[in-house]
Every structure is written in C-alpha cells, then in structure tokens.
C-alpha cells in the first residue's frame, strides 16, 4: 500500500476489516513493520532506517494508554517531556498547558489507576501533545469518554498539524476531518471531503 498525506490534513481512516486501519496507523507510528509500500505523511517518509527522526516528529495514541497505573499524570507528563529532550522549565511549562487543555489539573498527582481508563487515555493524549508533534496518529483514542467529549478533545489545535485517526464514527469527527482514507481489500484510496478544516 502507498500512502501520501499533505501537511495539515485531518484524515479519518476507515477500513474493512477495521483492524486494517489500526494496523496502518501502527505501521506509521513505528509499532508494526510494513511488508511493502511507501508511506509519506506531511513530507516525512516512513522508513525503518530513519525511525528515530520520525518518532521525534510523530505522536501516537493507541487504544491502550501504555502508562503504568501507579504513575500520576504529572509523572507521565514529566517522563514524556524528558524523553522528548525538554529541559525542566520547558517540561513544566508545556505540562501545565496540556494539563489545562485536557482537563487534568485536579487529577494531576493521583495515580492514573484511580481515575480509571478515561484518565489514563487523557493522560496518554496529553503526553503526546506535550512534545508538540507535527503529525498526530490516533488509533481508537479516548474510548472511555463520551462521544461529544471525545470529539471536543480530538479537535487538536494547530493549522499545520497533520492528524490521522481511526476507530471513531465519522459523524462524531466530521467537523474537523478534511479527508477520508478508505482501505478495502488491502488497497487504500484517499478522498478529499473538506478543505475548510
């Protein structure tokens, strides 16, 4: 499969079977290995030999938060900032911004297990946005939240930020989706639906 997505596109990936969309996003995130094909998103080429550079510019949130249940959102954000190479001051500044954006301030210091899957998923998304990635890949994100709340939180800011997502009803995300990428029988088709973002 070949895929090329422009800068600033907001793409909803639909597939039959649905697992194909998830697999595509996992390949783009560097979690799964492609058998063949070329992948180009926002001018970045996905190639195994440049995986490190790719990972620094691309953020991924999957259905599993991937955060230790004993961690608090504050600890997870700090760790994400450290791994993004941010200094202490910048980590704190950005953590405060994303915590506000994803409504975490009141729950920042309690272990994520106390807040259930919703808090873990919100923390995972906040950790991703902390690094301010050019490309955000969302595979069935925020499943534990109500559809309206999901749609509101998934309208990520940044006109030049490219977003690919799957596992969410088109009607829920239609206000901010600009393109559809459909996969059927192993072949993908990109179709523009809106240009006003």
């Amino acid at each position, binding site marked *: 499969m070949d895929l090329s997505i422009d800068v600033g596109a907001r793409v909803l990936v639909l597939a039959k079977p649905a697992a194909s969309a998830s697999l595509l996003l*996992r390949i783009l*995130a*560097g*979690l*799964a*290995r492609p058998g063949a094909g070329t992948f180009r998103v926002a001018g970045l080429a996905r190639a195994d030999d440049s995986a*490190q550079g790719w*990972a*620094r510019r*691309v*953020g*991924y949130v*999957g259905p*599993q*938060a*991937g*955060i*230790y249940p*004993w961690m608090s959102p504050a600890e997870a954000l700090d*760790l*994400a900032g*450290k*791994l*993004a190479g941010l200094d202490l001051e910048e980590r704190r500044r950005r953590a405060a911004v994303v915590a506000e954006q994803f409504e975490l301030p009141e729950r920042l210091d309690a272990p994520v297990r106390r807040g259930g899957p919703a808090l873990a998923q919100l923390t*995972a998304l906040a950790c991703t946005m902390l*690094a301010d990635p050019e490309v955000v890949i969302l595979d069935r994100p925020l499943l534990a939240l109500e559809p309206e709340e999901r749609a509101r939180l998934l309208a990520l800011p940044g006109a030049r930020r490219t977003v690919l997502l799957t596992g969410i009803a088109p009607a829920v995300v239609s206000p901010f989706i600009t393109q559809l990428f459909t996969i059927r029988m192993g072949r993908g088709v990109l179709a523009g639906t809106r240009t006003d973002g």
Partner: protein
Amino acid sequence: MDRLPTVTRLALRELWITYRLVLIVGLPVLAGLLLQAVPLEATELGPVGGAGHWLAVGLAVAFSVIGAMAAATIAAERRRGTMGWLVVRAVPRSGVLIGWFAAFGLPLAGGLGVGATATWFGALERTPTIPDALPFTVASAAMLAVGLASIATGLLFGLLLRPLPAFALTLTVCAAFLGLSVMGPFPDGLPPVAVMAVLGDLERGTTPVAQAVRGAGIALAASAALLLLASAVTERLDL
C-alpha cells in the same frame, strides 16, 4: 542510548512498586543463607567446598526464578503497551530491552554480593582456621555472569511468548541448565554456565580461580549473544 538511565530508572520503579525488586534482591540473599539451614554432613565437602556447593544450589533456584520473572515482565510490558509507549517516544527498541536488562541485573548483583558474604561467614563458623577466600570470592562473583545469562534468556523468551508460557519456558530451561551444572552427572557443568560447577565443587579443581574467570567470560559472552538475539527479535516485533 542517552535515554538508557531514564528507562532503567522507570523499570526499577516498576519492579519496586510491584514488589518484584524484593524478590530479585531477596532470592540470592536467601540462597546465601541456605548453608545455615543445611548440616555440613549433608555433603562430603569441606567447609569452603560445602559453602560453595550450597550457594550454587541456592543460586540455581534463584536465577531460574529471576530469569522467569524477566520473561514474564517483558512479555507483559509488550502486551500492555508500555513498551510501545516508549518506542513511539524515540526510545530505541533495543534501548528498552537493555534498560530492563540493567533493571534486573543491578539489584541481582547487590543480592548476590550480600548472599555470598552471608555464605562465607557461615563457612567461617564451621572451620577453626581462616581458609583462602580468593577462590570462593572469584567463583561467587563469576556467578553474576550466570545470573545475567538467565535474565537475557528470560528477555528473549518474553519477547516471543505470552507472559505465562514465557515464565514457564524460562524457568524450565534455566532450571535444567543450572541444576544439571550443579547437581547433574556433568562434572564440568553445562556450557555456557559451567561456572556453576566450579562454585559447586570448589575443592575439586586445581585452579578454581582461573576456571571461574574463564567460566564467567563464557557466561558473559552467552549473555551478550542472547541480548543481541533478543535485540534482533525486538526490532522485528509488532508492539
């Protein structure tokens, strides 16, 4: 690799919070105390030989369990997405693996040091003269390489299997290799963990120090080979 200390600290904290760190340190310490529970007459060896033998027996059990824990841990890390969480943040896959290897190896070294010291003091209580400590010390220190090989084995199986099968397979393989090297019909032990046989029978060899150093080298080489294999496996895995 600049993220290795961060990953290792994270892994150590996970081990601490889930009490596994207590086992990693405690099992070699318990192995060192085994001599206290075994009458000297249980072996035909002298005080130092007996001390080495029972320490080797205890460590064979401890390393098998710790290797199996490493297997279950890395398999669980992979399945619950915590390994993927690090990988999508530009931590190399092999870096995650090395971080976990260090998180298991560092406390194991501490526990082994305490356990071997306890065994040595136990041996001193059983002899009126102060024996030469060098062969026992070198052979005990060489056991760290065997422990690391057990952890590397566990990490490799943990990447390939689900937590429970990985735990069971590592426990079986390590127990077979280590047990047969100490108590089996192979006087020189089974490579690559032949150093177990050196510690298990310190009074038999004419050059136990040289044998222990050589055995440690072989076990370290085996650990490195297993880690390289595990790194190659993890590069091809879907996380």
